[in-house]
């Protein structure tokens, strides 16, 4: 099964990135083979959640482990059957292990929009 963990760096030792649309990297992991792929994220001024959601669909992800989802990401992901889990502030590897142990809780609340965007509103 292919899962995705949002990461602050491009190794499995990197910490979870609690942002979804504006995370630094997406780690796509195959839970059967143990293979991982890191995709650098380059979000624009708006629509980061939609773009990241589209990536999950295109990559055929079955479960997503992240911190917070904004309204747009929630709308996209909510229309899919991708399972959503709240990660823990530990490494990517530890999050994958906890996912396999079934010890992560699922995400069912929506975060504020632009929460992962640094800077003011006058873009």
């Amino acid at each position, binding site marked *: 099964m292919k899962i995705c963990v949002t990461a602050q760096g491009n190794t499995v030792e990197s910490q979870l990135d609690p942002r979804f649309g504006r995370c630094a990297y997406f780690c796509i992991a195959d839970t059967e083979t143990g293979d991982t792929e890191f995709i650098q994220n380059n979000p*624009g001024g*708006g*629509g*980061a959640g*939609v*773009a990241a*959601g*589209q990536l999950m*669909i*295109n990559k055929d992800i079955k479960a997503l482990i992240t911190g917070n989802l904004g309204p*747009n990401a929630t*709308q*996209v992901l909510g*229309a*899919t059957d991708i399972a959503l889990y709240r990660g823990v502030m530990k490494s990517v590897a530890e999050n994958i292990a906890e996912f396999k142990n079934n010890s992560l809780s699922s995400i069912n609340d929506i975060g504020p929009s632009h929460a992962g965007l640094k800077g*003011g509103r*006058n*873009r």
Partner: protein
Amino acid sequence: MNIAVLSGKGGTGKTTVALSLAVSGGNFQYVDCDVEEPNGYLFLKPDIKHRVDVEVFNPVIDSGLCDLCGICSETCQFDALAVMKEGVMVFEKLCHSCGACMLACPKNAIGRKKRRIGVIEADEDRLFVQGRIDVGEPISVPVIRELKKYYREDVPVIIDSAPGAGCGVVETLDMADYGILVTEPTPFGLYDLNIAVGLLRKLSKKFGVVINKSQDDVNIIDDYCKKEGIEILMRIPFSEEIAGNYSRGILPVDQDQMLRGKFVHLWEKLEERVNL
């Protein structure tokens, strides 16, 4: 002559300067491009006779023709489209109405529908014009673009800009002959002034600075302008009286003849600078 009054930082006194300048000269047109919160009308009290909706278009997907190929989503520069397994999701508030998805769709499955995002309001003679964006709408540019169609050529146009240096301000500056940057002598004022100066230089606009809430012993804006070779057009003193009157809808030039004189002089300067 189109004079844009802008500032990096909000609350420095754009509207105070724009209106004081307007009423200290002869005929003028006042265009409020601060469409998220236009407030010039509170002072000028125009009789609004003319109201026109501002509309944008958004894509509509014909699910009978769409084969979910995903090209529209890849084409969209604003990530306003998500192609799901069962259909396409359109995020109207992310859409910039560029139409690229419609051109890119190989099945011609994308049509357009209009959506209101704001309104233009004007008095009988169109000497007062303001834009007002609807609550919750994030993109002000189409409203400002519409306002530009109202600019008059027979009288000087005073354009009250939004704060910041974003897309709305860029659009506001498009047809401006000169930019008046209103700032205040605080670190925040200076920081945002520097960003606005960068924008005006990039757009090759002529500009000068008005220091509001000026105090004799605080010179950070003076030092900056000297270093950057920017003209300080005038100063408005720091005054509780000005702030108090403003909050009651009274412009400082209606109370202070000295200050009105300064604005009359500013007109002369502006005419000179614009025609350089």
